C-alpha cells in the first residue's frame, strides 16, 4: 500500500522535473538575449533538478534518499549563486562595451 503511494509520488515528481527541464531547454534554445536565456535556464538548474532528485523517495532506499537530500540542499544553495554570477558578468561586460 505505502509502496504504491511512494511509487506514484516519485513518478509524479519525476514527470514534473522532466517537464520543467524541457520547458527550460526550449527557453534557452528560443531566446536570443543572454538575460532571457538566463531566466529560462534558472528553471532547470533550480526546481528541475530538485524535483528529479526529490523523486528518490520512490526508490525506498535509505542510502539513495540520504544522498539525494544532500544533493538537493547543495543545488538549492549553489544554483542562485551561479545564476547571479552570470547575470553580473553580463551586466559588467555590457557596461564595458558601452563605455
Amino acid at each position: 500500500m505505502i509502496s504504491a503511494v511512494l511509487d506514484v509520488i516519485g513518478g509524479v515528481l519525476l514527470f514534473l522535473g522532466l517537464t520543467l527541464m524541457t520547458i527550460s531547454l526550449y527557453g534557452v534554445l528560443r531566446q536570443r538575449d543572454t538575460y532571457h536565456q538566463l531566466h529560462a535556464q534558472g528553471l532547470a538548474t533550480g526546481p528541475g533538478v530538485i524535483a528529479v532528485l526529490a523523486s528518490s523517495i520512490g526508490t525506498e532506499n535509505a542510502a539513495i534518499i540520504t544522498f539525494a537530500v544532500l544533493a538537493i540542499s547543495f543545488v538549492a544553495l549553489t544554483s542562485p549563486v551561479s545564476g547571479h554570477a552570470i547575470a553580473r558578468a553580463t551586466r559588467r561586460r555590457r557596461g564595458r562595451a558601452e563605455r
Partner: protein
Amino acid sequence: MPDAILFPALVWVTLLLVGGGLALVRARDVLQRVIAFDSLAALVIALLAMLSYLRDVGYYLDAAVALALLSFTATVAVARYLASGGPFG
C-alpha cells in the same frame, strides 16, 4: 520505482542532452555558452540520479554531487573572470 517509468525518462533526458548540445553550438556569446554548459550539467545530474534509481545503488549520486560542485565552481570562476578580467580580480 518501476522500470516502465524510468526507461522513458532516461530516453527523454538523453534527447534533452542532444538539445543542450544544440544550445551550446548555437550560442553567440561566451556567457550564452556558459549558460548552455550549466544546463547541460543539470541534465547530467538528473541522468545520474535516474541511473541510481534504476540500478538501486547510491554510488551514482556521489558522482552527481561531485558534478554539481564542479559545475558550480566552473561557472562562478568563468563568470568572475569574464566580469573583471582576472580570476581573482
